[in-house]
């Protein structure tokens, strides 16, 4: 009946799938082939079980060869993985599947910005992982994030995002700044204000067409993440308008935009990737997983020219990190829990860290040589295991809220408007609060 000209149902879905944008062709393929996986019968004649896992972005299990390893160790199990590149597309679909109870994988990835919403509204739909896994293995704030008030654990912690500062040694030298990581850390020991001062210094003698930072929203996230209270209070109220961390982060971002210390590149966008490839940004506020992104996009040309220092003010902050949940209605809840337990055990988290650089949430992994002695050659052999493990233990247990992820994105968009469009701080804040009130709605 619908005389749909532009987007009929199917092409709309493909279109949505393709928003992820990075690798269009590959994404279109996955977009078209992701349905129908649950119709496959679970156990075949030999009693072989197919465990399905759905995740987003880069969990690193494939890169670390963990699926094959698990299949080899458990010959009765076959693992099937369905990865969506963009979490924004993955999550609504996941919610719909949770609502209808169909199409769910045996193991599902959960982003930290969403975990509170699931804990609050969907805890019943998940198996209690505390039955199988000792949650004390994780850094304590991580396990709290996925635990309901009754003590049910809906997600096993995979990685965390302790903050650091990634910077370009060569650009710093050319601009007359110290290149050594200890000296850089000392120069910004006073906090993010010092970081901006360093930015002004950099910009004065900066090599042509380079910028001190990639985007002010990255710095903003770094500042906010070091606070215990961010967007919500402990009793679940949205307090972002009064939150000290948000205010401080916003003001710093506005200052950076005004002083033109930033290239104004929305992180992970094409422009951002291009700037890294061309090497025109000198610093990036750097949660552990960011190092992998930088080395991927900046490429071999800048190997060894990047380095990692402690965050300004040596604040301990966490930005990002994910969980693995087991839907209660799955066909193989028991096997799925065993699989999740194995995936999040110290050895496996260390292997993932080695493969793609996402930092373990399991404290046991910090004692393993893969983490403890880890040095990133790309970042001038920065001792990342040491830097991050030390910080991870002292990160404050941040209060999470159901809409943390969307609020963060909304504010980032407006910070970007200040940087690139010259929107005044007041106008941008007004636009941000209007949009966020709509989110909380």
């Amino acid at each position, binding site marked *: 009946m619908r005389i749909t000209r532009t987007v009929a149902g199917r*092409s709309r879905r493909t279109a949505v799938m393709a928003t992820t*944008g990075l690798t269009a062709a590959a994404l279109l393929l996955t977009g078209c082939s992701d349905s129908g996986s649950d119709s496959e019968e679970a156990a075949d004649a030999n009693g072989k079980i197919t465990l399905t896992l759905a995740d987003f972005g880069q969990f690193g299990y494939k890169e670390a060869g963990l699926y094959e390893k698990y299949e080899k160790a458990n010959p009765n199990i076959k693992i099937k993985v369905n990865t969506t590149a963009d979490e924004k597309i993955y999550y*609504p679909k996941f919610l719909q599947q949770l609502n209808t109870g169909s199409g769910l994988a045996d193991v599902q990835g959960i982003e930290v910005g969403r975990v509170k919403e699931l804990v609050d509204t969907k805890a019943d739909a998940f198996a209690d992982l505390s039955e199988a896994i000792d949650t004390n293995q994780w850094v304590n704030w991580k396990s709290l994030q996925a635990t309901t008030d009754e003590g049910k654990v809906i997600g096993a912690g995979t990685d965390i995002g302790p903050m650091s500062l990634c910077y370009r040694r060569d650009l710093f030298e050319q601009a007359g700044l110290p290149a050594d990581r200890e000296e850089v850390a000392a120069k910004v020991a006073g906090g993010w204000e010092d970081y901006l001062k360093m930015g002004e210094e950099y910009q004065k003698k900066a090599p042509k067409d380079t910028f001190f930072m990639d985007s002010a929203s990255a710095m903003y996230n770094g500042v906010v993440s070091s606070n215990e209270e961010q967007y919500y209070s402990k009793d679940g109220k949205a307090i972002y308008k009064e939150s000290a961390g948000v205010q401080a982060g916003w003001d710093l971002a506005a200052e950076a935009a005004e002083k033109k210390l930033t290239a104004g590149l929305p992180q992970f966008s094409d422009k951002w990737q291009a700037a890294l490839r061309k090497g025109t940004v000198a610093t990036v506020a750097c949660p552990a997983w960011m190092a992998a992104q930088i080395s991927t996009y900046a490429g071999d040309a800048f190997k060894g020219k990047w380095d990692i220092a402690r965050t300004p003010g040596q604040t301990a902050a966490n930005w990002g990190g994910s969980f693995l949940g087991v839907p209660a209605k799955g066909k193989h809840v028991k096997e799925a829990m065993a699989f999740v337990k194995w995936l999040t055990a110290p050895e496996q988290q260390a292997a993932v860290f080695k493969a793609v650089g996402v930092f373990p949430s399991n404290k046991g992994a910090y004692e393993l040589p893969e983490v403890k002695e880890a040095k990133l050659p790309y970042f001038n052999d920065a001792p990342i295991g040491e830097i991050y493990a030390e910080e991870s233990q002292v990160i404050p247990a941040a209060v999470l809220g159901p809409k943390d992820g969307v609020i963060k994105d909304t504010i980032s968009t407006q910070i970007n408007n200040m940087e690139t469009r010259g929107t005044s701080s007041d106008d941008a804040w007004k636009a941000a609060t209007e949009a966020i009130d*709509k989110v909380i709605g």
Partner: protein
Amino acid sequence: MATSTPTRGAHGSKPDRRAPKAISPGRQAWRSRLWRFDDKASPYAYIAPFFLVFGAFGLYPLIYTGWIALHKVEMTNLDQMEWVGWENFSTILQDSEFWTAVSNTFIIGVISTVPQLLVALGLAHLLNYKLRASTFWRTIILTPYATSVASAALVFALVFRVDGGLLNWLLSFVGLDGIDWASGHWTSKIAIAVIVIWRWTGYNALIYLAAMQAVPSDLYEAASIDGASRWQQFRNVTIPALRPTILFTIVISTIGSMQLFGEPLLLEGGANGAQGGSEHQYETLSIYLYNYGWNLLHLGPAAAVAWAMLALLLLIAAINWLVGRVTRKSAA
């Protein structure tokens, strides 16, 4: 039509009914009643499948969407529906972003539909000449229509890219600075309109061509005997004959531009694409709906947007119909 065709194939032709001699009167009455029933009911049975399918997949979702629009429903918990009456509608009507989306949709609709239909008309006129390999040309102009929105939009996203985009690369040859197409208020709309025009011009041209070929050739002969030039023939014979077709394409294009989704979503992609640009500069109503439902997870207002879109379409259709009536009258 041929009068000898039996009205109801297998059952035989009408004279049968009037040859009742061998059949008892009661049976005859029963038969004729059956015939009459068949006569009346069969057509409905034939078209029933469409209406059943339409009811299940068209009407039911439509009404259910309306039901949702009157409730507070979150994607996180579809079972919990709280009655709020018209609140969702007043929410979206008070939202400045909604009106931005309305005006964006309207502007993009106009700047894509008008040139598109004009070019299609011209193309159809050219294709209507006697050409060598005419089928080849006709097929060629339809190829953009055959590509999917997603791939077309992604290719054009590369063309309109700031960094290393084809268009900015060409501009650099003329010494012009690169344009950040997606971030400008007008440039982004133009970019989207270009994608739409590229995809749909050929499609409309073929529709016009089909209509043109139905115009009796003696009209043209008479016109040329009267000394009318090609242009005069086009204006005074072709266009009037095409009026209903043109109206049809306008309606179809209007509906299409109202539903514009893939092109704006993919122009920038990512988070910006999903909300129609960092300042909503190219946010269409469909994107607004999508953002409300699938990003903010509030299904109530999203459903309200869907109904508002339907209302707008009906309004536009009514205007179209009125205009059509007036022009037909003035033409007559």
